């Protein structure tokens, strides 16, 4: 059976039946309209966003200004709190930078042999540079001294110069050994130990007091150098612990 094309010959082969008479203009117009609709939606959405964001920004700015104004009004309180913090810190630094003389004396009294009498004890806190045997880090920490204005800045080396007499040179040697046991001692140096013949020396003033020394007892001078005073940061934690036991009595108050 033979197929028959019923389409008129004029309209065959154009393939543009969908285009029709308008040559596709209708589709173009529809496409443009659809595109414009999308654009209109995007435009409207953007306009709405602009409007709401403007309102939001204005509200937030107003709230921020209000909060700022309130904060400004309360600024003196903040300044006062800062002053308190600054002052507390400064006093804390000064407290932490002190050398514990009483502890050093207590230790000295504890370690002195019974056969040793002291005639004088001279304790000073010298500069890190002048002190012999001070670690190199000591001079570096001295720079921090100006910040706190402490009379005993970090890096300073406490030194005891002890003079007295002993019952024998062996006692002097024992004393030198035991002085090294003092908490925080860095160096013990014997300056002299002379067995003389003149009378009336010593005075028995020390913790190991045993009265006046014999005429022939050796007279000595010893220098005890402690570890350089540590920086404030290092001492803060330690000071809290060591002074915990002292925080009592006297009806004293606490500044926090």
């Amino acid at each position, binding site marked *: 059976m033979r197929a028959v094309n019923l389409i008129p010959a004029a309209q065959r082969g154009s393939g543009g039946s969908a285009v029709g008479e308008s040559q*596709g203009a209708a589709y*173009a117009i529809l496409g443009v309209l659809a595109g414009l609709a999308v654009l209109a939606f995007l435009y409207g959405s953007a306009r709405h966003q602009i409007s709401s964001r403007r309102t939001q920004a204005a509200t937030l700015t107003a709230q921020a200004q209000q909060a700022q104004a309130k904060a400004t009004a*309360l600024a003196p309180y903040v300044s006062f709190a800062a002053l308190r913090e600054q002052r507390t810190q*400064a006093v804390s630094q000064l407290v932490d*930078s002190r050398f514990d003389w009483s502890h050093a004396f207590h230790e000295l*009294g504890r370690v002195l042999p019974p056969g040793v009498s002291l005639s004088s004890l001279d304790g000073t*806190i010298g500069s890190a540079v002048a002190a012999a045997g001070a670690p190199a880090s000591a001079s570096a920490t001295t720079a921090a001294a100006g910040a706190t204005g402490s009379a005993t800045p970090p890096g300073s080396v406490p030194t005891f110069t002890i003079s007295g007499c002993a019952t024998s040179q062996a006692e002097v040697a024992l004393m030198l050994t035991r002085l090294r046991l003092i908490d925080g001692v860095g160096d013990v140096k014997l300056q002299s130990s002379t067995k003389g013949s003149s009378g009336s020396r010593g*005075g028995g003033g020390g913790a190991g007091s045993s009265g006046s020394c014999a005429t022939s007892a050796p007279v000595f001078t010893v220098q005890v150098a402690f570890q350089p005073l540590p920086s404030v940061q290092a001492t803060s934690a330690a000071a*809290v612990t060591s002074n915990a036991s002292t*925080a009592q009595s006297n009806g004293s108050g606490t500044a926090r």
Partner: protein
Amino acid sequence: MTGRDRIVVTVIGALAVLAAAWLLAVSPERKQAASLNAQVSAARAQLATAEGQLANARAAQQQYSAAYTSIVSLGKAVPASQEVPSLIYQLAQASNRKQVEFASIATTSGGGSSGSAAATAAASAASSGFSQMPFTFVFNGSFTDLYNLFQQLNRFTVRTSSGGLQVSGRLLTIQSTKLAPASSSEPAKGGATRLTGSVTATAYVLPASQGLTAGATPSSPTGAVASPVSSAAPQSPTTPAIVR
């Protein structure tokens, strides 16, 4: 013009219309919306900052009373003026408590009696800290009593276990001590040898520009009438400035 050309022209025209609409209307609006988003973010950040500052300020306001108390308490350790009489009183009280004789006090610079110390104390100002007032004290007592006294002097201002400061007297930094047998032959208690202890110590004074409370009153940091330094803290020797 063929049918295909017409279609191409029509499509190009449609695209041109859409592109023009995008470029002239939609795109600027979207850009503006984006910039407003940035503005909103900035405003939010500004608000957060302001609220943080306000919270800090409110906290400071709530703690003002405690801060004022602390400042006044610290004034006992580091007063705004030299306060030599109260220092002498504290030293005398401490030495009495430790059975040590408080023999003398002198300024390191010139040496004078306790009376002239107030007038002559040369305060060497530290660059950014407190002014220093060097003194030399002389005490007489036994070795044990003297080191107990040194402990007492340190305890005027100490750290607490919580990290705070406990202030019951003047902050002193002992720089040197010299112990030697006392010239008098009178023995100390318990028959111990009587020693003379010379102590070089430094007391501290607030910078003159600050004042004790920087013009604050117990009720407000911006008190209309700035409290005189001496009246802001209980500086009387008989009423120690101890506040918790």
